[in-house]
């Protein structure tokens, strides 16, 4: 099929374009990017007033399959991702059982081939059963297709095991995506430790539970000469460490999630369990630090940490509810409202954080609109306003603190590998 996307504002930091332009898609590739194209095509997409960017890449999500298909599946999760404008998502290995062996990777890869509506990059576990005891078979998992390893959901508690894992990852050419949390410091905690947790009578998780492991793992990565990517950075203390590491030219990258620049711990006072996530929502000062770190490049990537949980799991006492919220469908709007409209980032900056950088860090396709690139393209209406209701949620789980919010900026059309997977907000696959 040949598609012509006409008249949109094309933003691609890789080819340094930010201008009104047309894009011709031929088969699964981008054939041409130029002004006023009049090529023959099967379907023309009118992108006037829209922003046309490389498809969004989410390097941190939980799709729950296999094992927790009541929360999400590859089929439902990838459709929710499409709705949010994502063309590639990386799924974390904390399924039941975890993705910790070549056999499990092969099984997951089979489900993805059968059910996925967008590209899915697989992440394998760092340790067997994610228990932090024995490093998994990285090279075998890589042969089956994983692009990175992570014990996300838990940290690797023992420094000796982490060092061993970082060395093995370097040898196999795999990225380590690092969930930084000192489990001894966070034990029993359910929200940020501070005055709000004190007045609510809840156990707190101090910022140091994150930052002490960021510090440790940057040192270990340096020793192992391995690449490390710090997941879901939530606090100022971690940012300072990452900034320092980058100045020292260490191969460290980092991501944050939209909720860490849109919400603060103050939101927890309702005891709404959709404000419970790990790491927890932090202070206003942390939010400002995160925005600054996005602007100055300390944080490379915005990832959703999409973590579906059923109503039955979440509709309980704050202490008993699982951590995490869904994020695919709100990420773009929150970026538009909190970062673009508030002058933190420009569109090219945002495309870097949501597409180019994560694609590059994962070493997967996408992230650019260069001629010859895979036709992973998202067309966005930056002005579209809507109220995010439970009925609108595409994901199987509805655990979002943003339900009821008035949001702005929405993905309208999405091409995945040249296939028009979402057209006028309707999912076609």
């Amino acid at each position, binding site marked *: 099929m040949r598609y012509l996307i006409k008249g949109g504002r094309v933003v691609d930091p890789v080819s340094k374009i930010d201008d009104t332009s047309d894009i011709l898609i031929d088969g699964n590739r981008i054939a041409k990017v130029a002004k006023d194209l009049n090529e023959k095509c099967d379907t023309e997409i009118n992108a006037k007033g829209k922003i046309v960017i490389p498809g969004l890449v989410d390097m941190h999500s939980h799709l729950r399959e296999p094992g927790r298909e009541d929360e999400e599946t590859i089929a439902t999760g990838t459709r929710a991702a499409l709705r949010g404008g994502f063309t590639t998502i990386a799924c974390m290995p904390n399924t039941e059982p975890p993705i910790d062996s070549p056999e499990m990777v092969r099984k997951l890869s089979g489900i993805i081939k059968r059910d996925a509506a967008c590209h899915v990059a697989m992440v394998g576990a760092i340790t067997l059963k994610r228990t932090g005891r024995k490093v998994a078979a990285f090279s075998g998992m890589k042969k089956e297709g994983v692009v990175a390893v992570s014990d996300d959901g838990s940290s690797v508690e023992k420094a000796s095991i982490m060092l061993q894992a970082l060395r093995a990852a370097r040898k196999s050419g795999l990225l380590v995506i690092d969930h930084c949390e000192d489990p001894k410091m966070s034990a029993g905690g359910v929200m940020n430790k501070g005055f709000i947790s004190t007045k*609510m009578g*809840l156990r707190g998780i101090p910022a140091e539970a994150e930052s002490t492991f960021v510090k440790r793992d940057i040192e270990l990565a340096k020793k192992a000469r391995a690449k490390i990517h710090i997941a879901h950075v939530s606090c100022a203390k971690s940012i300072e460490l990452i900034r320092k590491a980058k100045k020292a030219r260490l191969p460290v990258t980092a991501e944050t999630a939209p909720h860490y620049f849109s919400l603060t711990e103050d939101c927890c006072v*309702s005891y*709404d369990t959709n404000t419970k996530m790990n790491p927890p929502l932090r202070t206003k000062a942390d939010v400002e630090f995160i925005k600054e770190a996005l602007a100055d490049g300390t944080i490379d990537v915005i990832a959703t940490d999409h973590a579906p949980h059923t109503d039955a799991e979440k509709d*309980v*006492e704050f202490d008993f509810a699982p951590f995490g919220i869904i994020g695919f469908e709100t990420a773009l709007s929150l970026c538009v409202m909190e970062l673009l409209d508030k002058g933190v980032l420009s569109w090219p900056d945002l495309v870097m954080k949501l597409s180019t950088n994560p694609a590059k860090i994962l070493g997967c396709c996408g992230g650019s609109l260069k001629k010859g690139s895979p036709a992973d393209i998202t067309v966005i209406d930056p002005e579209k306003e809507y109220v995010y209701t439970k009925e609108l949620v595409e994901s199987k789980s509805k655990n979002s603190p943003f339900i009821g919010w008035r949001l702005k900026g929405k993905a309208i059309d999405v091409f995945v590998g040249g296939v028009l997977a979402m057209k006028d907000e309707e999912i076609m696959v």
Partner: protein
Amino acid sequence: MSNKFIWTKKDLLGLEYLSAEEINHILYTAASFKEVTTRQIKKVPVLRGKTVVNLFYEPSTRTRTSFELAAKRLSADVINIAVESSSVRKGETLIDTGRNIEALKIDIIVVRHSASGAPNILARSVRSSVVNAGDGWHEHPTQALLDIFTLKEKLGRIEGLKVSIIGDIAHSRVARSNIWGFIKLGAKVTVCAPEKLIPVGIEQTGVHVTNDINEALEDADAINVLRMQFERDSKLAFPSALEYFKQYGITSDRIKKCKKNIVVMHPGPINRGVEMSSEVADGANSVILEQVTNGIAVRMAVLYLVALAKKPTSSLPAKVENM
């Protein structure tokens, strides 16, 4: 002033969520109910035909009994439901339990729970009134109300009084409710505990913080001494009860150095020889048993007010929204 006040809250979840005016109105209402409890026939028909359910997820004798008596003296019907704390996480959810109880056409749920915020979650899920009888480390509003009521009765006012709360502040719902209540009514509040039992940020409520017992006692018009639970959380700071008693225990020697008429309160049950000596507990400055008596009047006031709230409004902090 108080008698013209119109009460609008359907729930009592914590003193943090009440205004000084609302707290004063509860105290004012409690005073008139206290008169009832001294009569030969200790019953008024104001809640006749209403049903109160005591839903207790934690064992409690005194608070439950106090609520039960309060409800009965208002002529309400009372049902007690005790949920084994061990079955909280596997059995029916709190919200389902609340909705099932509500389907029995009851009017007020009095809930005690080990998880902070459980009454808030329940209040959001049912139309009935919810009264917090103690949740985790969060709040125990009726306890603080009866403490305030008792002190006001003794000293005639709250505003300007120096009140010290002594003990495990970090793990105490009584401490939090006392802090909100006393601060809102204009008292000067000091909290005193070993450093590890002072929760982070507590000074943001407006209290003065000290680790020095002598500082907390000096100039105090009243002290509220918390129960120390060495079998649970308090052992963090002090490995032994005896050591705690030496450093922080309220003894007659320490009381002798205080203001002559210092009022000594304790929410009970007392650990004699741990946070307080027997001489002090049973001495002239102690109002501990009066607190127990006043607890009934205060709870009568609370049940009465929430059950008959005019144009009931939610007492909950709103869910986060950007509209």
